[in-house]
């Protein structure tokens, strides 16, 4: 891919070209059902096939597009730097359009026909759960990079995004200390929102705070008059918000215009959908995001000149924002490179083994992850001990750092005892099985 920016016009023509090849349909090149010795085309013998399925249209395009762009950036950098173990990376990318049905079909095609060596796919938890049966059946090495509710202990899945416990664990204690113990939780009314709300209860118990109210809002809701009134009625010290999606963004706008100025801790706002760039100030004033990464994270490897942000915008001049998931796509590609070079082969079981031997970025062998310091991939749980930041937006939506510290993934390792180096598993654990206060 040429070095200059991947402007929209080029993308459209590429789309057109893909359209034509696409018409040949998924039955085209594939050598059909015969599972005999794969008569690989020559190119795949000495290239690394990386499959990237990220939403560039549909409901999750806003947060999915940066993920796609970051993967392409990492791949281009590695290729320019000699590739993996001397082999150039051949990216295989299609737009699933935020449609779980397309994810399933494209995952099938990427595994059985394109025969990708590794797969990055999916923003929402629903998408992960939709394709995990296909991943498990084919024992396909799979990176899931979105921050999520946590608890997935799966032999071939690497959930390298931060978990709800890590994110809420970074922002909630600070807010309790800073503003007081009374918490009001508002969350999107689906799995992620409900499990995150359970984690707020667990963390409140650990930090002797108290959840005075909890409210779940359907993804399709966009008027928050009653929610704002309930918050005012409960008079909490701060609010924990795990709202998700386009419709929920309007909560922040409506909260500001209703004059509700209680501090709000969040694990989803600003870092994923960059609301502070899209809404008019002071909508996001006094919002505290507990995340592993945002474009404004002040580390040398991120905002320093020639850093990750600069390189990202060099490649995509008209990109909107470098969000949390983009960084995870980026550094996890380097983790994969490390693992393949350690394993010396593309065979997925060996690469998984190398990944489980503990890959860390920020050492002399591998560049530092944009979120800063060294971060390690924990072999047993396939999760990452992230460098967690708490960042606050002021009246003009400028982002300032509040705290930052390393928070390891504890739920799967300590509480559940998931150790994939010892025994294979493909289950998702939830806090309610282990903490009674999460009832």
């Amino acid at each position: 891919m040429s070095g200059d920016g991947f402007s929209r016009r080029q993308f459209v023509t590429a789309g057109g070209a893909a359209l034509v090849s696409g018409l040949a349909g998924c039955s085209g090149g594939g050598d059909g059902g015969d599972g005999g010795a794969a008569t690989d085309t020559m190119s795949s013998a000495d290239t690394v096939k990386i499959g990237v399925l990220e939403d560039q249209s549909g409901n999750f395009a806003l947060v999915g597009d940066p993920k796609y762009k970051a993967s392409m950036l990492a791949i281009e950098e590695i290729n320019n730097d000699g590739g993996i173990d001397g082999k150039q990376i051949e990216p295989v990318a299609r737009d699933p359009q935020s449609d779980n049905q397309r994810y399933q079909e494209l995952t099938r095609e990427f595994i059985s026909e394109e025969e990708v060596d590794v797969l990055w796919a999916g923003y929402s938890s629903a998408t992960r759960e939709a394709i995990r049966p296909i991943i498990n059946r084919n024992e396909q090495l799979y990176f899931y990079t979105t921050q999520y509710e946590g608890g997935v202990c799966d032999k071939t899945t690497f959930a390298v995004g931060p978990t709800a416990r890590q994110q809420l664990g970074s922002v909630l204690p600070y807010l309790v200390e800073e503003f007081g113990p009374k918490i009001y939780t508002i969350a999107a009314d689906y799995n992620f929102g409900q499990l995150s709300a359970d984690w707020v209860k667990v963390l409140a118990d650990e930090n002797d705070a108290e959840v005075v109210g909890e409210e779940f809002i359907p993804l399709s809701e966009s008027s928050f008059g009653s929610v704002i009134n309930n918050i005012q009625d409960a008079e909490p010290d701060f609010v924990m918000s795990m709202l998700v999606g386009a419709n929920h963004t309007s909560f922040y706008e409506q909260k500001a215009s209703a004059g509700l100025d209680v501090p709000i801790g969040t694990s989803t706002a600003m870092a994923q959908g960059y609301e502070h760039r899209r809404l008019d100030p002071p909508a996001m004033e006094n919002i505290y995001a507990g995340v592993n990464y945002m474009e404004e994270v002040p580390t040398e490897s991120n905002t320093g000149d020639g850093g990750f942000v600069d390189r990202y915008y060099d490649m995509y001049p008209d990109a909107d924002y470098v969000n949390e998931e983009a960084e995870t796509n980026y550094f996890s590609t380097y983790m994969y490179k490390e693992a393949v070079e350690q394993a010396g082969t593309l065979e997925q079981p060996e690469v998984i083994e190398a990944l489980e031997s503990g890959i860390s970025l920020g050492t002399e062998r591998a560049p530092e992850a944009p979120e800063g310091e060294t971060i390690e991939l924990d072999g047993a749980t396939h999760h990452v001990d992230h460098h967690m930041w708490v960042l606050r937006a002021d009246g003009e939506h400028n982002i300032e750092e509040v705290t930052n510290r390393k928070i390891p993934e504890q739920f799967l390792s300590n509480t559940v005892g998931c150790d994939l180096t010892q025994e294979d598993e493909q289950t998702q654990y939830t806090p309610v099985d282990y903490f009674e206060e999460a009832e």
Partner: protein
Amino acid sequence: MVNGLNLAFQFLDSFAFVVLAAAGLAIIFGIMGVINLAHGEFILVGAYATTFAVTAAGLPLPVAMVVGSLVTALFGIAVERTIISGFVPNWIGQRTVGRDLIEPLYDRLADSMVATFGLSLVMVQSARILFGNSIETVGTPFGNVAYGEFSYSTYRLVLAGVSILVLVAAYYVFTRTTFGTRVRATMADEQTAKALGVDTERTYMLTFGIGSGLAGLTGALFAPVLSMQPTLGDQFLIEAFVAVVVGGPSVVLGTALSGGVLGAVSATVTNLTDSTTFGRIALLLAAMLALRFLPGGITGFIERVRSRRQEGE
């Protein structure tokens, strides 16, 4: 804790949302018989046009809103001329093949549904290609009104007021003006209306334009309050259809009444169960029951009651 004023404000909020969501559709679907699945995208055009008028052209918000509605009205007329009435394709057809290419979509419910679904796919994706996955939102004007420990955004109350104004204006235009009578005559029986000298082509065009303009106005009014994304139209679609159908034959009055009923149900249940999910499900179930037990919709029911009372039974 159900606070009277809270409940009232929430009711106004739901009422304004349902009525404004259904405003344009009441005319395009209610009066003209076109099931417009791209209704949400007409609202999107109004919202984007208003936002750009403020951010790019620097116009004050009220002026930008008028611009937003007009742009959508013109867009609506363009859609009507090309797809709905097939005037342009037939004009071309006459000159090339010597016959009309397509038949108008009026009163062809299923076909208009498929056509407008295709149109909505094109509009959402084009908006994404041209303007990206999101554009900057304008701020919400007017502060808030505080009462006790609560406060409510003044703009939301203004929205409720405007929604009533829109209804009154539409009611006046469509029932008390000669233009209104011409529209209803054309829709009731185009042939007879044409025979009576009504320029039905122009009436169809203008009526569709007004319907689109109203949808654009809804987009303009909600622009400061919603996040500007190509898929913002989806949240209006179901409420709009339900309100129009539950409203019944006398379209404008019906939309107001169904907006009231559905708004009340949604606000009350949300308050009682403290869950917006059940508030939304209650609204949908209320709509299903209304459609079942009031076959002619609310105004159909009123019509029957009035005529039965006259029978003196």
